[in-house]
Structure formats: C-alpha cells, structure tokens
C-alpha cells in the first residue's frame, strides 16, 4: 500500500496557483449567474443545460465531505491519494498553506504550519480546552528562501491524520486530525515547544474527541441517561416477547421493568469495557446456567445487563437467547412494599414467568433479600434455581456475597462472574464522552487533563467506590467548585484540589511550601529524634523520591524495620513523621502486634467474611490510603499472620476478608522490634564497632523473621542505645513541648534550669526502658506542680515560673 498526495492545483507553480484559485472562484460565480440568467431567458433550449450547470455547482458547493470515505477504505487498495480523503474545508486549507509556504519559503516548515493552524478557530478552541496558552509559544518563523519539497514534508502528517480518522471511524480527515498529524510528526524543535507546554498525546486525542463530540453530540444524551429517567418516562410495558411466542405477563409487569423494551424504545444499553464479563454472561446463559454477577457498587453490573438486553433486541445473541425478554425484578423493593404478601406475590410472579416462557429474570441487590431475617427467599426460588427452567441473573456486591454465603451456598445455584472496575483508559473514554453532556449543561469547559487526572487520582486514592464512579464524583465536585468560582474551565489543578481536600493527601504538584518541608524534613525530624541519624536520613530519602514521582513501581512508599532497645525513639520517629509530614498523628495507623500472637487474630487484621468485624489494618487504609502504618513489636506477630504481610510489602496490595482490594502503595510502613537489643547494648559496652553490631544483628533477625520477609524490607535500621547526653537532649525537647503547651493554654512562661533538667534525666532514665519513663517524670515533677499552683490561684496568665534544683525541686514564680 502506497500513500501519496496529489492535487491538480499543486501541479501548477505557486504564483500561477494563486491566480488560478482566484480565477476559479470568479469563474464559478460567473457560471452560476449566467446559468440563472439563461434559465429565465427566452432561449428555451438552453434552459435544461442551465439547470444542469446549477445542479452541478450547487452539489459541489453544498458538499463538504471528502471525495472518498475513510470508513470504506480497504486494505487491498495499493495506491491511495490522501487528497481524496480530506474534507473540503481541510483540503482548501492545506492547498492555501502549501501555496503560501512555496511562495514564502519558511526555514522551518513545522513552525510555519503551527502558525497557520493557530489562525484557525477550531485549533484555537482546542487549545482553550487543553488550557494551553499558545500566545506564549516561543518560536519565530524565518524565511530563508531555501528550496524544500513541502508537499513531501506534508505526506507523513497526512498519513498520521488518515490513520487517526480511520481508528476513530470518522468519514474524512478534518482539521483536528491534520493537527494531530503535525503533533505526531513534529521536528525536534517543535516537539520541544509541545513538550514544554505539557501537550501530551493522550490529552490531545481526548481534546480532539471532545471537540468533535461537542460539534456532533447527537444521540449521546440517551446513551448516558440514568435508567431511572427512562423508567419514569415509560408508562406502557411490553407484555410479550418480540416473536409473540410467550404468554402475556400481566402480574409480572406490575412489579418489573422490561429491559429489552427499554433498549428498543430508548436506544439505551451503551457499554464501554467489560467485554470479557459480557461474553462469559452470554455463554453461561446459553448453556442454561444461572449467573451471579459480583462487583462493587458502580462497577457497571446493570450496564452489562442492559447491554445484553440491547443485544437481544438487536438479535446479536446466540440463537438460544433470541426472542427472550430480559426483565428486572427488584425483590427487596417488592418486599419492603408488600411485607405481608411477599411470598404470595413471588409465587404468582414465578408462575407467570414460567407460564409465559422466554423471560430472563434479573434480580439486582440479591443479597438484600437473602439477608432479610423474616423471609426465606429460597423457599420459592430454590426450586427454580435448581431446575434452571427460568434463566436468572442476580447481582451482588462482594461484601453481600460473603455475607450471603453464611446463609446459603450460592455456588450451588449460580455461576459466578466477577465484575472488575473499568480500566483507567476505559474510564477516561467514558468520562470524556460524559463530559460533553456536562459541558453543555453547566457551560463549563472540561479539559482532558482534568478528566485524566480525576481518573488517575480516583484510582489511587478513592477506594470507597470503583472506577468510573469515583472519578465521576470528583469531576462533578470540580464542576460545582468551578461554578462557585465562576470559572469557565475545569482544570487539572481544580481536580487535584478536590481530591487533596477530600482525602487529606498531598496530590497536588509539589508547591514551594512542601518543597521546603521536604528539603528540611531531616532537620525537622532531628528536632524531635536524637542520635538516630541513619533512620532519619533513610526515611527522608524515600519520601523525597515518592513526592518527586520517582518511586519504584510496586509496593508501598517504603517499608522499614526499626530494631533497637526500648525507649530509643523508634515509635517516636513514626509519630514525629506522622505529625511533620502527614499533618497529624491521626494519619498514623498504629497496631500493637502483641495482639496478633494467635493465628485466629488474623480476623482482627483483615476483618471477617460476614462483615461483622472490620480489619484494623485493612479498613483504615481502604478509607485513607495515604497513611503511615506503625506495627509495634513486629517480632511478636504469629508466623501465619506474618505471611499476610508478604504481598503487602511486595505488591502493596491485599484483599480483605470481604474480597475487597486494599491498596498500600501510598502508605509508609514502619515496623519496630526490640529483638536482640541486648546484643546491641553489650556490643557497644564491649567497644565493638557499630557497623559490626548491625551486621551481626541483621543475621540474627533471620531466626525470628523468614528470609523472604526480611528481604522485603527496604531497610533494616538499628537504633543506637542512648547515652546521658542524648537523654538530656530528649528531655530538652520534651520540656520545650511542655513550655509551648503551657504558654498557649495558660499564658505562663516556663523556664527549667540546667540542674533541674539534669536531675529529671537522672530520675527518669531506666536501663531497661531507655527514655520512655522520662516523660512520666516530667509530668510528675513539673506538670502536676504547675497544675496545683494554677488551681490554688497562685499562678496566672502573664506569670513566669522558674524550676530549679538544689537538694529539692524549687518553683519560683515571677
């Protein structure tokens, strides 16, 4: 197959071409005027010929499409003139641009083309949608009068444009596709301009699609109307199937919605993605199986079923399913409205369906009726499901399925199909189409970047709902924010703002404040943690990499094992990090692993199948994936439970007891252990080098933890025992916190003298517990005394209290 570009005009030299173009316009005008004149003249025999000329001119004038249809292009064609596939407007634009280029001879043809494109309203609108300020493009078009074959340079651009039109199933190459061709084939200099303005291929493609759908948005509305709208609109119902082979179902119709009827009447049933699930559903129904679709709310279970109805209506299903009606029966709704007579109604419905034949029943939220205490739905449905004489599709959430299993063995009645959430690409496509409708309604232009960002962030951080629902919620919130701010555009930044606000996570691109915080992270941690340089350095390094977007592909942000004696600052490091980096200690999920010493304690960690107990590890992370997880005394965990952590540390993903995926890839995991901490102490006392102590400790850890688990830690960091000087520093930090607290709450200035501080350290240091008793000692000696003085009205706002030590602690008020 050979592409070429040939147009009769381009065979003439450019100056002659310009003249001819003008002559042609004048010629056509003269021809039409003359023809009209002849039509009404007295020369009778010329009238038919004049009419013919008018017919030809009008046809050519009104015809805007290409000479050939891209959709009817076949691969066996060997030579393809791309001129025939250009729509009239684009063809005229191209001829004019090439003519100008051949006369002016620009040095950089691609810059010249860009400049010409930017004169076009369509491309300017496209840039507006993409939120790109083309006025700031830094380029100049020079004219060096060098000879270049511009018609040859345009060919690859046209080929790309043709391929895009073909892949999008568009009839002709339009100006947008031609611009895409330029983007694809830009020389390195123009490529740099596009790159610096953040014009990415995906955004450009979505932007083009949105512009095209904005112009031709016919039919889109009904595709995405919620079903409820159709159900309200339609009062009459089909009583029979299409082939009239079934019986009338008056009783069923009073309680149901006929999806096949809806598909026919309202052209509903558009489906994006879920092809495999749909095929599996059809195959199972064909084989006579009942099908249970299991998927989170918003994954598109009903969209699949409605699409099946559409396929049945259009006779695009296997012969076994032709002529069937697909009828929705909301059992829990019927039950809530008719509690007393529910079983009676159900029994009549089943009789009606069985009698009629050719009906597939669809039960949404099937778990609700199964879990209803006062009704045994299987009393009626059990036999129907077993005999398989009525094809049944039921839907459930994974939680509902697990809970239902405690009551009935669903697997013996149904073939299960798990419905996955849409992929990011499919979600972007779906939301791009929906955006056109929202745009028209809200009069706010939605940029493709905002759609892509909403999907990207929703996939990673909003776990309560699956895609595309989670991203759709973000865009809708973004639209109401834009409305409030009276903005004409919904931008990527607004979407980031919404998700950051919703989930309290730093999804925005790093701003100056955060940059400073990240660069200073080590210093800030040093202000709270004493003598643990290595741990601080490692954590700061990992967080910087993560926020710069350079993190490793799989697994959590970081997984650390802090080993060392009690009271040296392991837990304190995690707390400080949660406060400094995550904003508050509340962003820390802390689990004392002493509580997980038995295999059955796994329920506490990931929840129970009936949903009665929610996982203490999985649930908080499901709700807020951007968290710090502290697993204290990790070595005390039962080995069976330790195995749960292998996929978490490795892939960053596990399923909870209800089968829901929990994503740890935005979490930082810190495990602490004081195993073999005595060896560290002894080693230091014996004057061994710290590196050697660390090596020996690491090898001993394999006696507690499996090698595969140890290998999954990013770093095993050994905390050093604290000496007197370190403890003094820690005491100073604690006193500083107390000073700040008292000043803030009571306006009292606290000063602790050096001898007093030393005495507190002496009293508060324990060889076993390290610095841990220090805080208690400070509370005992200073905090409680200040409390007594405030209650006795001896100390009030504006006072200064000095704590000194000489034999005893003395409190002097100034």
């Amino acid at each position, binding site marked *: 197959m050979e592409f070429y570009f040939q147009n*009769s*005009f381009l*065979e*003439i030299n450019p100056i002659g071409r310009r003249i*001819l173009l003008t*002559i*042609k316009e004048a*010629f056509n005008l003269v021809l039409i005027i003359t023809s009209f004149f002849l039509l009404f003249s007295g020369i*009778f*025999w*010329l*009238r*038919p*010929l004049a*009419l*013919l000329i008018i*017919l*030809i001119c009008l*046809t*050519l004038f009104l*015809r805007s499409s290409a*000479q050939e*249809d891209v959709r009817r292009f076949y691969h066996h064609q060997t030579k393809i003139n791309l001129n025939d596939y250009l729509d009239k407007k684009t063809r005229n634009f191209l001829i004019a641009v090439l003519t100008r280029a051949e006369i002016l001879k620009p040095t950089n043809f691609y810059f010249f083309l860009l400049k010409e494109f930017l004169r076009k309203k369509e491309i300017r609108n496209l840039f507006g949608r993409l939120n790109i300020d083309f006025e700031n493009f830094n380029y100049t078009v020079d004219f060096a009068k060098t000879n270049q074959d511009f018609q040859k340079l345009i060919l690859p651009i046209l080929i790309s444009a043709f391929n895009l039109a073909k892949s999008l199933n568009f009839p002709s190459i339009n100006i947008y596709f031609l611009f895409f061709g330029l983007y694809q084939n830009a020389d390195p200099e123009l490529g740099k301009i596009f790159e610096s303005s953040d014009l990415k291929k995906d955004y450009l493609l979505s932007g083009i699609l949105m512009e095209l759908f904005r112009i031709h948005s016919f039919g889109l509305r009904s595709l995405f109307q919620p079903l409820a709208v159709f159900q309200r609109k339609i009062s009459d119902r089909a009583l*029979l199937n*299409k*082939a*009239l*082979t*079934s*019986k*009338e179902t008056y009783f069923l119709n009073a309680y149901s919605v006929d999806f096949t009827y809806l598909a*026919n009447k309202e052209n509903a049933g558009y489906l994006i993605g879920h092809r495999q699930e749909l095929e599996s559903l059809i195959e199972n129904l064909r084989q006579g199986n009942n099908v249970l679709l299991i998927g989170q709310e918003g994954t598109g279970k009903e969209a699949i079923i409605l699409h099946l109805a559409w396929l049945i*209506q259009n*006779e695009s299903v296997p012969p076994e399913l*032709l*002529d069937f009606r697909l009828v929705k029966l909301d059992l829990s709704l019927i039950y809530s409205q008719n509690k007393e007579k529910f079983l009676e109604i159900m029994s009549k419905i089943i009789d009606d369906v069985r*009698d*009629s*034949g050719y009906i597939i029943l669809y039960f949404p939220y099937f778990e609700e009726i199964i879990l209803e205490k006062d009704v045994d739905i299987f009393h009626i449905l059990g036999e129907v499901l077993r005999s398989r004489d009525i094809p049944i599709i039921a839907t459930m959430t994974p939680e509902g399925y697990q809970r239902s299993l405690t009551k009935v063995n669903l697997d013996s009645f149904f073939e299960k199909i798990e419905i996955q959430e849409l992929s990011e690409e499919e979600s972007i496509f779906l939301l791009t189409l929906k955006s056109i409708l929202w745009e028209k309604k809200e009069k706010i232009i939605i940029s493709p970047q905002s759609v892509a960002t909403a999907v990207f962030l929703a996939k990673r951080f909003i776990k309560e709902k699956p895609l595309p629902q989670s991203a759709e919620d973000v865009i809708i919130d973004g639209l109401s924010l834009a409305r409030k701010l009276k903005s004409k555009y919904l931008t990527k930044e607004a979407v980031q703002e919404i998700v950051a606000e919703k989930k309290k996570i730093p999804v925005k691109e790093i701003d100056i404040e955060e940059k400073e915080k990240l660069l200073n992270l080590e210093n800030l941690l040093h202000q709270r943690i004493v003598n643990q340089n290595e741990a601080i350095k490692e954590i700061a390094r990992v967080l910087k990499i993560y926020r710069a977007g350079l993190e490793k592909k799989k697994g959590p942000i970081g997984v650390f094992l802090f080993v060392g004696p009690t009271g040296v600052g392991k837990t304190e490091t995690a707390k400080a990090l949660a406060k400094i980096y995550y904003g508050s200690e509340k962003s820390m999920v802390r689990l004392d692993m002493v509580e997980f010493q038995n295999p059955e304690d796994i329920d506490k960690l990931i929840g129970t199948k009936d949903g009665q107990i929610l996982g203490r590890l999985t649930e908080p992370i499901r709700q807020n994936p951007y968290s710090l997880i502290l697993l204290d005394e990790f070595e005390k965990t039962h080995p069976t439970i330790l195995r749960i952590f292998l996929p978490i540390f490795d892939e960053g993903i596990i399923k909870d007891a209800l089968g829901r995926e929990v994503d740890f890839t935005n979490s930082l995991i810190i495990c602490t252990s004081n195993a073999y901490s005595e060896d560290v102490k002894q080693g230091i006392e014996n004057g061994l080098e710290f590196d050697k102590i660390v090596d020996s400790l690491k090898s001993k850890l394999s006696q507690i933890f499996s090698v595969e688990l140890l290998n999954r830690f990013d770093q095993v960091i050994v905390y050093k025992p604290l000496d007197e000087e370190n403890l003094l520093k820690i005491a100073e930090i604690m006193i500083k916190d107390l000073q700040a607290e008292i000043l803030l709450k009571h306006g009292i200035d606290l000063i602790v003298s050096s001898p007093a501080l030393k005495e507190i350290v002496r009293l508060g240091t324990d060889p076993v517990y390290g610095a841990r008793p220090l805080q208690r000692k400070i509370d005992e000696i200073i905090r409680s005394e200040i409390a007594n003085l405030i209650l006795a009205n001896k100390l009030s706002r504006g006072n200064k209290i000095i704590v000194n030590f000489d034999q005893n602690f003395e409190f002097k008020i100034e």
Partner: protein
Amino acid sequence: MVLKILKVLIIDDLKEFLDFWFLHFPQNWIRSYFDQIYKFDQVLKLKANLRNITKPLYGDYTLIGYAIAFPYRVLRIIFASIFYFFLGLFYSFFLLIWLILPIFLLVYGILLSK
C-alpha cells in the same frame, strides 16, 4: 498548460460531481434502504416470524394454537415482505430519477437545440 488549467477549472469538478452523483450517493442510498428495513423490522418482525414460523402464538401449544399461529405468521411475513418490496420500489424509483436527471437535462438540452 492549457490542459492543466482546464483540469483545475472544469475537469476535476466535473469528475467530483460524477463520482458523487453516480457512485457515492447511490451507495449511501442503498445502505440507507437496508437501515430502514432494519428499523421497520423491529415492528414488522419479518425475521422473528420466519425464525418461529412453526411455533405457536402466546405459548399455546395446543393443536388449535399451532393451527392459528402458522397462517398468522405467514400473513405477517407476506405483509412485511410486501411492505419491504414497496419500500424498495420507492427507493429504486427515487434512485432512478436521481441517476437519470443529469443525463435527461443534458440530452433534452441537446435535442432542443436541434
């Protein structure tokens, strides 16, 4: 050069007109006929009746049910076939006029001139 100018001014446009009038429009017109049949068949159900020609109506599997259903379905098939035939006739008639129109104008003009 004169040929090139003639080609640009007249021949290309003429070729485009002929392509559209005698090739692309008839193709699309025929396609639209089948699209219409597809839409009408949602109501007239020629295909469904052909597929179920031996099946009774309304699930009535008695001898009478079969006896009524067969002529009913045959009648509907005949009716739908006749409808599609006439629809086809209308489409063909329009297409014929469409194809003849420019030729007629040309020939009629030439004949009148003599």
